[in-house]
């Protein structure tokens, strides 16, 4: 992993090191016994870039449940390690750098369940259970009020025209499949998403 400038400046200066081994921090290590060294465990995970649909492979380095670095996946046949400027700035969606160069979680990300009361001027934070129960109640009420079981010719139609559903091109296939199963089970017909937008 590329070390940030802060670590450099703390320990090194600008004089040209005589040999390459200095470059990889050899000397200090030899002094101490191994117990004093702090190990940093990480593992590599492959994912696909979420921006355009070329489908470039990306390797994320994850340490203690946090993504610490993302780079192009060299073994991926489409991008062979290369990424465009959006793809290589993927980490910035999760972390932005404050002026001291330390990564902090992106402040504009929504991390709590927000609720806006009718006529309210701002958000209130609520918990998941309440939100899910209330949304289920709203769906149930709207569906039961407007459900049509048969049309004029007696053909069973079982639909409700009163709920619109916008699925998404930013979600995975499995998520979109469950969206579709849920909409058809509720009898929704106003289904669309940003492919047609």
């Amino acid at each position, binding site marked *: 992993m590329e070390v940030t400038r802060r670590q450099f400046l703390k320990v090194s200066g600008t004089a040209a090191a005589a040999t390459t081994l200095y470059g990889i921090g050899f000397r200090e290590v030899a002094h101490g016994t191994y117990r004093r060294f*702090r*190990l940093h465990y990480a593992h590599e995970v*492959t994912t696909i870039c979420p921006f355009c649909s070329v489908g470039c492979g990306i390797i994320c380095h994850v340490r203690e449940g946090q993504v610490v670095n993302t780079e192009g996946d060299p073994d991926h046949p489409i991008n062979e390690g290369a990424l465009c400027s959006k793809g290589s700035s993927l980490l910035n969606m999760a972390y932005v750098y404050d002026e001291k160069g330390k990564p902090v979680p992106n402040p504009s990300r929504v991390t709590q369940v927000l609720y806006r009361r009718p006529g309210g001027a701002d958000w209130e934070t609520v918990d998941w259970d309440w939100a899910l129960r209330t949304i289920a109640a709203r769906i149930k009420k709207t569906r039961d009020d407007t459900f049509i079981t048969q049309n004029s010719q007696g053909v069973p139609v079982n639909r409700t025209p009163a709920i619109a559903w916008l699925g998404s091109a930013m979600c995975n296939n499995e998520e979109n499949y469950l969206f579709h199963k849920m909409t058809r089970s509720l009898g929704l017909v106003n289904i669309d998403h940003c492919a047609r937008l």
Partner: protein
Amino acid sequence: MHPLWTTAFQETWDDCRRRYVDFKPVGERLKELHCQARQWDQSESLLQEDHLKTPVIARQFPDYFKRVILPVFSQNEATALALDEFAEAMDQWHLEDPGVETRIPQWLQQLQQQAMHLCKPIQPDFVTLIVSLSLAHLYRSIPAAKPETPAGATQSGVCPVCGLPPHFAALVETEGYRQMECWLCGEHWPFTRLECPYCGEHHPEKLGYFTVEKMEVCRIHFCHSCQAYLKVFDTRSLALKDPCLWVMHLATLICDDLAAAEGYHPGSEMEWHQWMVME
């Protein structure tokens, strides 16, 4: 000194000289030698860790050999004479002197006679270091010794030339391809990044790596299903022309040690850690 030392070594040497083309038996032979060496009694190590303080530059291994290994052997001037001869032979390797091939075996003969009189027992792993370093250096410097890589041998977990599992690899070019390097014959071959070369495990949750603080260049990639580790050097950001992984491996032997402490064994079965001082 253990009599086995001389005959095993001599056979390996003749084997290698006679049959450059087919390397596989040489690799097996060397591993056998290496395992036998480990059964000797292990007293205090000859090599103090400050010997590693003096830095080693790529392509200047002979110089390192003279300044590190030479003092170790020089308690007895008889071995010193043999080692001088070897050091000089190593220098000539760089001059591609045609006669070098004959001069090295003479050195080995002398070392074997002298080894008898050494007052201190040599640490077994240190023997491994000497043998593998000298053979590896020999193979790399005499191009004829190594046949071309068989075509299509891209995704193999062992060296396509000499069939030995690798001990270290490097991430090369800006894209970060993983390029394995055979510690014995120096053969390079590409290998995908998210797969264990020893057991073929490729589920991400079974693979991982750790780095030692302030030495992030060396990553110890381990695999939970076969508990083996491989050292991977991220040489992309270093501005070195062509980094010699052997030297970087020597410089990061502490990582092998830590990997052993964490319970992983080297996939190449080349045990390095015993001769480091461990408090």
